[in-house]
Structure formats: structure tokens, C-alpha cells
């Protein structure tokens, strides 16, 4: 055990010998968290709208007024013909244009029906879908309004019947940051942990100091534990800082038990750091180690449900996520912090993580060879 302590001490000395390391490990992630939490937002705001009004009637003016009043839209252009609208879409200044055809109002009154045209820049399909949904909702609303205002017959209110009410639990304000911050925190802790540990043993190989260690009677598990613990501590400190930031800046509700979060994080980090060390034992240079780590991490992150819901993935992809430790921690953070799930609720997550920790670290110990 004393041997392990000496390795840990040495690792800490080496990590923080570089003056840039301290801010890189502890300050940068906080800045990233603050920035990313604001950036990672799928909600579509500020849709740049161009309106082509070929009718210039009372109805068109009223419709345009409704679009202007909606905070999701941002009226960037107004013209009487199509060409300027197309140009603005092409140059990227407008995301969507609404075309009100000539005789819109007349058709509506005389023929009881009229049409409008919406064109959306659909390169970002999801954004386009939402933009279209917002626009359609405004038009529907406008339709109801003119129906009650202009229609002569009185009996045109929606008939009494079935309606739907809804409520949003756990996050009634529909705050996207509440959802993202715990996940981004997982991302940052994982990145720091995996890269630091992944490049560690391989650095000693590259410089040659590993030989000096290998001729000592040190046990393999002592060495691996000594290499693992410093990063485990750093990552846990990092997580604590992140949680404080989340609480102070983003008002993340801490519904569940913090003990549970830290307990799970402790196991999860063993998995991540063990993976890093495993990478370190199978690679020869730091560059290699970095790329191998990066390769797996990017897949882990994309398949973790952090940015896009796992349920949307096809079945084979969902099956892959069962082997993804990041997915488990992202899930646990959200479950416990936001919904107050308890140990019983996440028992499956804990069991999987424990097994993985045992497996990965055993592999790392076995794979580390003192003799070649």
C-alpha cells in the first residue's frame, strides 16, 4: 500500500509541474460547461423570416402582425415578389419565407378557402421541421381568429368535445439547460479522465522510465492502482466543481441524493480510467494513445443519449449503447439529479457499472507486461 502512495505522489507532482495543467484541468472545464450549456440548445429561436406579400390586404397585414408578435420569428425582409426572398435564403440571411399570394383575402371570403406557401431552408431537417410547425401554428391561430371575427354565421365556435390537457413534470419551465448541464458535466469529467489516464503509462514508455519501474519488484496491480487513483481524485474534484457551478449558475435542482451521484461517479470513473489505462498498455506512443482514446470517446459520446435521445436510434444502435459506460452515467445524472431516483431505481445501472469496472481493470492489469 505504501508503494501505491509513492506512485500517487509522483503522479500528482508530475501533473501539476506544468503550470498550464492546473487551469486546463480545473478552470477550462468550468468555462466549457458555462458556454456549452448555453450553446447546446435544440430549441429553435430567432428564425429569420422573410415575407412576400403579394396581396397587401387587410388579411395579409393582420397575418404579418401575428408573425411579428411571435418571439420565435425575426422578420428580416419584406417584399412584394419572390426573387429577393429566394436570394436571402440562398445567402443564408433568411431561414424561411412565407408567400402570401395575390387575391388571398378575396379567395378567403368568396371561395371560403385560400392558400399560403411556406418555403424552409431544410438543410437542418429538425430545425426546419420545428420552424414549419411554429409557422403553421401561427397560421392556424390566425385562421381561427378571422373565422370568429369575420364569419357571419354565429354557430361556428368549435363544437364541445374531446380536448387534451397536458402537464410537464420535473421541469415545468421546460428549461433545456436543466437537462443538458448534468450531461455536459459527464462529458467533461470523462474527457479529462480518459485522456489523462490514457496518455499516462504510454508516456513513461515513450520516455523510457517504464523500464526503471519494470525492474523493481513492484506488483502490477500496485502500479495500476497508483496510476489510476490520482486521476480518479482529480475527476471527482472536477465533478464537484461542476456540480457547484451547475447549482449556482444554472439552478439545477438537486432532487436526489448527492451521495448516490458521487457513489456512482466513483464506480463509473474506475471504468473510464481503467479504459484509459488499457489504451495506455496497448499503445506505444502518446499520439497513438490519444487517437485510440479519441476514437472510442467520440463514439461513446455520440451514442450516449447526451445530445440526441437513445430511443430515437434504431434497435441495433440501441443495443450498442448497452455497452457504453457514458450512456449509463448520463442517464444516472439525469435520473438522480432531476427526478430524484433512488438506489433501487438505478440498481441495474450500478450492477452493470460494477461489472464493467471489474472487467476493465482486470484487463488493464493483465495487459500491462513487465516482461516482454
Amino acid at each position, binding site marked *: 500500500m505504501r508503494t501505491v502512495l509513492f506512485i500517487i505522489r509522483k503522479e500528482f507532482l508530475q501533473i501539476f509541474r506544468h503550470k498550464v495543467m492546473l487551469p486546463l484541468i480545473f478552470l477550462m472545464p468550468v468555462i466549457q460547461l458555462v458556454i456549452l450549456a448555453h450553446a447546446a440548445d435544440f430549441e429553435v429561436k430567432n428564425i429569420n423570416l422573410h415575407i412576400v406579400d403579394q396581396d397587401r390586404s387587410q388579411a395579409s397585414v393582420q397575418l404579418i402582425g401575428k408573425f411579428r408578435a411571435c418571439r420565435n420569428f425575426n422578420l428580416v425582409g419584406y417584399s412584394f415578389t419572390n426573387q429577393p426572398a429566394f436570394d436571402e435564403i440562398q445567402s443564408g440571411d433568411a431561414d424561411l419565407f412565407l408567400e402570401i399570394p395575390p387575391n388571398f383575402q378575396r379567395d378567403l371570403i368568396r371561395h371560403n378557402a385560400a392558400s399560403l406557401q411556406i418555403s424552409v431552408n431544410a438543410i437542418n431537417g429538425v430545425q426546419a421541421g420545428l420552424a414549419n410547425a411554429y409557422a403553421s401554428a401561427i397560421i392556424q391561430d390566425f385562421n381561427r381568429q378571422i373565422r370568429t371575427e369575420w364569419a357571419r354565421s354565429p354557430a361556428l365556435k368549435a363544437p364541445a368535445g374531446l380536448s387534451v390537457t397536458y402537464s410537464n413534470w420535473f421541469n415545468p419551465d421546460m428549461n433545456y439547460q436543466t437537462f443538458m448541464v448534468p450531461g455536459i458535466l459527464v462529458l467533461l469529467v470523462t474527457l479529462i479522465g480518459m485522456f489523462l489516464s490514457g496518455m499516462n503509462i504510454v508516456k513513461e514508455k515513450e*520516455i523510457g522510465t517504464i523500464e526503471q519501474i519494470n525492474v523493481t519488484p513492484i506488483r502490477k496491480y500496485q502500479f495500476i492502482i497508483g496510476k489510476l487513483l490520482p486521476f480518479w481524485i482529480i475527476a471527482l474534484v472536477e465533478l464537484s466543481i461542476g456540480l457547484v457551478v451547475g447549482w449556482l449558475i444554472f439552478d439545477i435542482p438537486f432532487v436526489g441524493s448527492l451521495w448516490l451521484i458521487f457513489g456512482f461517479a466513483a464506480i463509473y470513473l474506475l471504468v473510464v480510467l481503467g479504459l484509459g489505462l488499457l489504451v495506455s498498455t496497448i499503445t506505444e506512443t502518446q499520439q497513438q494513445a490519444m487517437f485510440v482514446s479519441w476514437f472510442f470517446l467520440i463514439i461513446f459520446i455520440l451514442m450516449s443519449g447526451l445530445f440526441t435521445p437513445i430511443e430515437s436510434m434504431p434497435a441495433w444502435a440501441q443495443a450498442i449503447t448497452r455497452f457504453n459506460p457514458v450512456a449509463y452515467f448520463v442517464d444516472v445524472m439525469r435520473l438522480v439529479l432531476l427526478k430524484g431516483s433512488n438506489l433501487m431505481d438505478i440498481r441495474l445501472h450500478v450492477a452493470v457499472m460494477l461489472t464493467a469496472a471489474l472487467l476493465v481493470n482486470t484487463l488493464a492489469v493483465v495487459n500491462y507486461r513487465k516482461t516482454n
Partner: protein
Amino acid sequence: MLPAITTDKLTKRFGDFTAVDQITFEVNKGEIFGFLGANGAGKTTAMRMLNGLSRPSGGQAAVAGFDVYRETEKIKKHIGYMSQKFSLYEDLTVRENIQFYGGIYGLPGKEIRRQVQELIGGLGMQAYANTLVKSIPLGWKQKLSFSIAIMHRPEIVFLDEPTGGVDPITRRQFWEMIYKAASEGMTVFVTTHYMDEAEYCDRVSIMVDGRIAALDRPRALKEQFGAGSMNDVFLQLTRPKP
């Protein structure tokens, strides 16, 4: 008295290439054993098999009475090693390096504190104690590496070209350190390609192309080959036969 090292037809092959070809020798306790040879003759490979870093492809060997196949971890308790590649941590200070290696060899805390004082004092490095190793001169680094390699009082110490690239005065001081260690009963196994250093050894073996071409006391070798210096002995052995 059991020999410190015995080998019997020890061999290492890398694919088709035989780096060490059936070498057989013994090293006695307390002896300074010189392991000579041109670059690439197989010295480092042979040494790495003995200290447990590399698994032999054939033959037998025992170090400090332990088998090199099955008991490498036991061997490691009884040896010290200074590799050819400089192997202290450049980003730790002199003091931190000593503390670290003392620690992983399991020296008690009191002993480590004593060694830090003694080593730094003995080497006259007080001024460098808290300097990062990367900024001290090479000669000092080599002497420090050696001191650290024998800090835990091993029975046998392996030195792989310990004086490569250092000035003659430092080399002299380095050999004085080796003599001092040997006089305390430590077995020294040292590779070198400085032939003047071979004269300092009790016995030398000369490796050519993975085999041991000669093995005896320096004086006996010079007589045998009718040479004035070890340098001539070496040249006779390695020069291509007419």
C-alpha cells in the same frame, strides 16, 4: 559460494534474427564483470533477459539464485538497474526522484529521508537538490541514476553503458563509485564499449555477433592475444578474419 549469475546457452531471437546466441557464463559474488562488445553485439539484450525485462527464447539462467523464466519478480527484489536510456523523471526534482524510487523499492520512511541526505551530500549535489532533473548536467544525472539504482542495497547491479557521453573526469568519478559499491560486496555487471574501462573490471567477456568470443581477466586476455591493451584484444576479436 553460489555465483551471482549463471547462464547456460541463454538465447534470444527476434523473428529470424538471433540477437543473443547460446551464451554461457558465470559471475561471482562481489565481482565487477565487464560485458564488452560493439554496438549491436547483443549486450543490452542479454542484460534485459537477466533483469527480467525480456523473456529468453531458450537456454537457462539464474540471477541471485532465481530462475529468469519463473521468478523474475523475485530477481527484481535483489537487483538494481541503470538503463542506457536515461531513466529518471525529468520533470521531478533530484530530491523527488530519490524519494520516489526509495518508495517503490519499499524503503521505510526514515531510511528514505536518510538516503536523500546521504545521496545528495555524497554526490555534492546540495545546490541541485530542488532542481528539476532535466536542467542538471549529464554527468550529474548519470551519477544520480547510479546512486538511485543501488539505493536499496541490491546484491547485483546492472549498468548499461553508464558512462556514455560523459567527460573523462566524471567517468573516473563514476568508476570510483562502482569500486566503492563492489568493495561493499555488491556484484556489478556493466556493459561498455570504452576499452579503457574494461581494464578496471575483474573479468570481462567480449561479445561478437551475439556470442561470447572471449572471457577472462583483462591481464590474461592481453597475454592470450599478445596485445598491449584491451583495445587491441577487442580489435583482434572483432576484425573480420582474413
